[in-house]
């Protein structure tokens, strides 16, 4: 239920862009660039997972990397054991989702929120990092897959055509699968947000007590959102493990969780398209700085984050959209009668669900 023509346009544009990327880019670009783009796309899926639970559910999870890592490790271990990727992919989504269910029940049913929730999720990802990091040595193996500790797990089987282990996908097809997954997640989240469940989740973010007084069990809705986020992060982890055919404990690291938060802050909290934009921009910036090798990329990333929190607190996409709407409104208000005002002003934020949130709250 896109709330305005602007929104519908955005959705259509996203679909067209995605399809274009899927089929035109492999023709135009070299394989190396395509590989690099693939990881951007995978990280965008990860960005969406936190964008949903933080931006719309109001749950600030400092350890989103935990689900990403669990997804990656599950895929690695399962595909090494099965020798086939279909079941591994399903498990790589299911296991993080179940983990999110367990962790979420533990937190939400104790009514833990805000910074305390942040500490717990952060701590959980640290525990996972410590545990997995210390599993070097032959005695630590699950089935036929050695865990490898800080060395990680190498030579993970690539995705294959479902149920046909003999025919693995080539890098172009992997890229197409990743873009398709990103589109699926994006449209899926849009649909979810437009559903009754989505309305309630956003309503809880706006005012938890009011939602409760209206008779909603907010714990259950928050848990639901958290599980969806965990599953999506797991999917991203699964694709990541199979992109590099390698996974190491750094996927659980603090740096990984920090990255996701930076993408969202730069792109725009409370939107879905923003974090994707932020993810692409920041990753491109990091790669570019790394290639340039003049200035430390941490220094720049840190400065970017500080500047955004202080000066562009809404993030790029909402700020630009606001500017555009204001422009359009001014143009419409100007005395040129012939020009049709393109604004159905009000809820003109790209991907924003202000309208819906207001609807729920009012």
């Amino acid at each position, binding site marked *: 239920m896109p709330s305005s023509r602007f929104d519908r346009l955005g959705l259509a544009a996203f679909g067209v862009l995605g399809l274009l990327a899927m089929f035109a880019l492999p023709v135009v670009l070299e394989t190396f660039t395509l590989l690099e783009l693939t990881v951007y796309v995978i990280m965008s899926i990860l960005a969406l997972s936190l964008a949903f639970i933080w931006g719309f559910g109001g749950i*600030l999870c400092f350890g989103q990397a935990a689900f990403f890592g669990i997804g990656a490790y599950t895929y690695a271990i399962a595909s090494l054991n099965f020798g086939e990727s279909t079941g591994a992919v399903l498990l790589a989504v299911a296991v993080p989702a179940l983990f999110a269910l367990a962790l979420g029940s*533990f*937190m939400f049913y*104790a*009514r*833990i929120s*805000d*910074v*305390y929730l*942040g*500490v*717990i999720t*952060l*701590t*959980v990802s*640290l*525990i996972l990092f*410590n*545990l997995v*990091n*210390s599993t070097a040595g032959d005695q630590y193996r699950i089935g036929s897959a050695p865990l490898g500790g800080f060395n990680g797990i190498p030579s993970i089987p690539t995705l294959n055509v479902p149920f046909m282990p003999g025919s693995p996908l080539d890098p172009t097809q992997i890229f197409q699968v990743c873009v398709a997954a990103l589109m699926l997640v994006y449209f899926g989240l849009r649909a979810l947000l437009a559903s009754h469940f989505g309305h309630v989740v956003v309503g809880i973010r706006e005012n938890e007590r009011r939602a409760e007084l209206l008779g909603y069990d907010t714990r259950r809705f928050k848990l639901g959102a958290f599980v969806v986020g965990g599953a999506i992060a797991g999917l991203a982890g699964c694709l990541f493990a199979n992109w590099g055919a390698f996974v190491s404990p750094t996927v659980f690291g*603090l*740096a990984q969780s*920090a990255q996701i*938060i*930076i993408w969202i*802050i730069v792109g725009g909290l409370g939107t879905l398209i923003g974090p994707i934009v932020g993810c692409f921009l920041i990753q491109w910036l990091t790669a570019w700085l790394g290639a340039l090798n003049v*200035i*430390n*990329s*941490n*220094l*720049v*990333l*840190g*400065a*970017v*984050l*500080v500047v*955004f*929190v*202080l000066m562009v*607190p809404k993030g790029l996409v909402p700020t630009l959209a606001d500017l555009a709407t204001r422009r359009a409104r001014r143009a419409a208000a100007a005395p040129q009668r012939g020009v049709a005002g393109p604004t159905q002003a009000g809820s003109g934020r790209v991907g924003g669900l202000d309208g819906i949130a207001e609807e729920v709250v009012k």
Partner: protein
Amino acid sequence: MDFALVVGIEILNAVASLMLISIGLAIIFGMMRIINLAHGEFLMLGGYAAITATKAGVNIWIAMLVVAPLVVGVIGVVVERCVVRFLYGRMVDTMLATWGLSLLLVGLVTTIFGNTTAGISSPLGPVLIGTYTVSLYTLFIVFVAAMVGLGLWLLLKKTRFGLIARGTMQNANMAAGLGLSPPRVYMVTFGIGAALAGLAGGVLAPITGVVPTIGVAYVAKAFITVIGGGASILTGTISASALFGTVNQLATFATTPVIGEVALLLAAIVLIRLLPQGITDRFFRRSL
């Protein structure tokens, strides 16, 4: 018997180290209700300040106990003036901004000192306890932690500044109404918190060595300890450090250091689940 004594000393050491790395963060959290995620980098800077000063010929004790806190205290005040003061009352935003700051500092220090471990040798020798050897420096750390605790208690309880600080903490508007300037109190408090982080970084530098990325190892533990301790600065930090440090060392002795670390983190999760507002929300409520 000797073994019990050694275990006791190791536990004391773990508790003291936790308290040292957390106390600066606790002051800032307790007074201003914000979490400074660049805290780990303040410790890292303290370590570099101590090492650089020692290599430049300064006496090692002066470098650790005077130069490190001074340098980092000044940096803290600059950070407060340039970034943090715009964000009071917005906890999540301060966390994000200081997280950015921590990345920035890591990048800056990597650019200046390179991504290698720097170190100074521990200035005190070993002592023998029965058949075991214990580094005398371990005891020195316990001593420093005790002095910091005592000093802070005296500062907050017995001086005019402490009175002003506690008043501002309880009700900033009332303090302002009485003619005090809360922003100035905040600035000084932030500086003191940073200076204590610098002190901890300096004192721990001979044991751990320093790399630009060492802050990450500290900040998570400090964060957990402070949140676990709750609102009271001193009692909260000491009680949470005592709990987590003991759990950590006992588990380490029983199994491996990794399991010890995990036990600490699990203890923190259980504690926050049971007492979401920290230990001092339930116990020692009226303490400092």
